């Protein structure tokens, strides 16, 4: 965007913010190619077009809030940058969700079963956090397979499990 175009955009945007509808088409004609280029450099092709359109609509929605003291082009690009960030975040979230579903599918479980399993694991982890350190150590040793021989350790494990059961009944009732 050269200086003359930038000044013209500034003038048209100021008029539009004041409610002058004759400035609508000049602002649209100047901003639409800028938005397309800006989004096109930052996002892949089909998504870039959508985001550029979304950004342009946001700009017109907020045109009444534009302050003439601001630089119109920078303001518009700021709105577009926010839309691009939002689109990227959405894409990342979709990718993460997809990865979780793939993982669940690979493990042979349905998403519901996976969620229940996760809940159960979280509840057990919370419960173990409330035990005395000695009980937690004994259970961790059993879980990792590093079980020392002898009746003393066996008794410690039994006591720890009894406390886990008691704590589970107190918290979850069964």
């Amino acid at each position, binding site marked *: 965007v050269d200086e003359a175009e930038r000044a013209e955009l500034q003038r048209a945007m100021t008029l539009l913010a004041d409610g*002058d509808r004759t400035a609508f088409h000049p602002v*649209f004609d100047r901003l639409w190619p800028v938005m397309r280029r800006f989004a096109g450099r930052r996002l892949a092709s089909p998504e870039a077009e959508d985001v550029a359109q979304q950004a342009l609509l946001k700009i017109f*929605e907020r045109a*009444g809030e534009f302050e003439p003291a601001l630089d119109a082009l920078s303001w518009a690009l700021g709105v577009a940058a926010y839309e691009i960030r939002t689109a990227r975040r959405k894409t990342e979230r979709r990718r993460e969700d997809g990865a979780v579903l793939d993982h669940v599918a690979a493990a042979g479980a349905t998403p519901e079963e996976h969620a229940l399993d996760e809940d159960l694991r979280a509840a057990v982890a919370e419960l173990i956090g409330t035990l005395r350190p000695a009980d937690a150590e004994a259970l961790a040793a059993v879980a990792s397979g590093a079980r020392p021989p002898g009746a003393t350790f066996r008794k410690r494990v039994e006591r720890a499990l009894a406390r886990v059961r008691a704590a589970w009944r107190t918290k979850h009732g069964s």
Partner: protein
Amino acid sequence: MARDESGLRSEARRRYERARLAAALRASWYVAPLAIVSLAGCGRTAFTLVVALLLLALVTFLGWRGQAHQRAIAPGVLGGSVPLLLPVALHLTGHPCLGGSCFLATTACLLGGFAGALVVGFQWSRLREPPHFLPLSLLVAGLVGALGCVLAGLTGVLGMAAGLAVAAGPVYWVARRV
């Protein structure tokens, strides 16, 4: 969601107009306290509600329309607050309007309307706005003033309108020459 360019242009225009209307409606919040002052001071519920709704519709339209229309609102409200507050202040300081003895309140409305038009005219001249600014601003001032002058009944409202109209002529003439 991708639209063709003409679809995008129409949607952009729709969003622009909708956002302006919402902003204008939000900016009209002050009509509520003005109506409350009128209800508390004058007790003419039906008249107050009708005038307050008309005022809300007018300032929302002017705010949505923008430019000089929008800038006519503030001087109108300022000018109208003189005939709004004068009779209410008189009433609250022990000059009740009972039966036919509304002469003082009616006079206050007439003078308030006159002063309100001077305020609007001064602002019009100071802001160097186009001619249509003046009647729009006077209309806003008239509706705001009517909320207070209803205390003196229809005579009060007509007195205020007469005050506005009488002052508007000279104000227009003087302001065009300043």
